[in-house]
């Protein structure tokens, strides 16, 4: 079949491999995704490459979750108490720079760098509606069990390495 021969050519493999890193994230556009899907179904080399890409981020997901140091609430409470004692807004006592100056500096820098308003301190310009919509997706995030699945991941990695 001419179509099949064309799909297996090195040029096609090279092109598909450019698209593979984004493939699972919904990139790189529906047409390329469709082409990639067809190609993956018949090209073991590219399918192996996709597996290797997935494995790399699966290893990240298997990293143990960080645990905040003890006493963080006590520190925060101290800062909050200070805050309440001083009606004027300021940052925590550990900071040297007043909040307004910091905000102004950040705003100027943000403007200079062409950054979006989302990066202004304290008042993230969140698309509230999109958050509400994505809320359900967020709440279904993976369980944050420390080290969970890491053994399996090690075995997977060690035992099924690409040949």
């Amino acid at each position, binding site marked *: 079949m001419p179509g099949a021969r064309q799909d297996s050519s090195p040029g096609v493999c090279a092109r598909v491999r450019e698209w593979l890193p984004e493939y699972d994230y919904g990139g790189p556009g529906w047409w390329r995704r469709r082409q990639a899907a067809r190609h993956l179904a018949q090209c073991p080399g590219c399918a192996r490459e996709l597996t290797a890409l997935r494995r790399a981020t699966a290893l990240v997901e298997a990293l143990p979750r960080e645990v905040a140091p003890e006493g963080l609430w006590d520190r925060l409470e101290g800062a909050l108490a200070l805050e309440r004692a001083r009606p004027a807004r300021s940052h925590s006592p550990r900071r040297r720079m007043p909040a307004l100056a910091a905000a102004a500096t*950040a705003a100027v820098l943000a403007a200079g760098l062409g950054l979006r308003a989302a990066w202004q301190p304290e008042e993230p310009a969140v698309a509230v509606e999109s958050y509400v919509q994505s809320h359900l997706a*967020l709440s279904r995030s993976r369980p944050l069990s420390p080290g969970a699945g890491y053994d399996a991941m090690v075995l997977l990695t060690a035992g099924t*390495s690409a040949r």
Partner: protein
Amino acid sequence: MPESEEATVRLAQRGDREAFRELFERHRDPVYGYVRQMVRDEDLAADLTQDVFLRAYRSLPRLKAPGAFRGWLYAIAANRVRDHWRSPRLDALSLDASADDGSGDVMVADPAPGPERVAVREGLREAVAAAVEKLAPERREVVVLHHLQGMDVRAIAGMLGVAEGTVKSRLGRARADMRRHLMGWMEE
């Protein structure tokens, strides 16, 4: 977010300290984890995390969608990290976040693993942690949010104020980087 969290957020918005503490307890580890991945230094991460919750406390009464608390909190955390990157010297740190701060160390030990597996696992963990650290900040940010914090592309885009395509592209490039950095571990 569990339904009860929205109620907790509403209570905290009205000044209920216990409610705010509950939110803190629920989110401190993930927020700290995010910040730690971004700045590497433990003490700095703790400082910035404290600051994130302080900012959240101040701004909470103005949060119009209590159901969106988690994303909103992460947006504050992302802002705080960016502020730090812009002017690290203003953060009054006792520790300098140097290039080699030992942050590639094993973070948490699993209970009672077999001896030979410990070596493999710890070595691999270090390699994975190091590979994450090597990522460019914009790529590391989306990797941590998506692969460690479980946020979807759309939520991350909303949080960072960028297009979804940008998030996908950064995730893809990060994944390619990770694959390259970890090649030795995956292909012997």
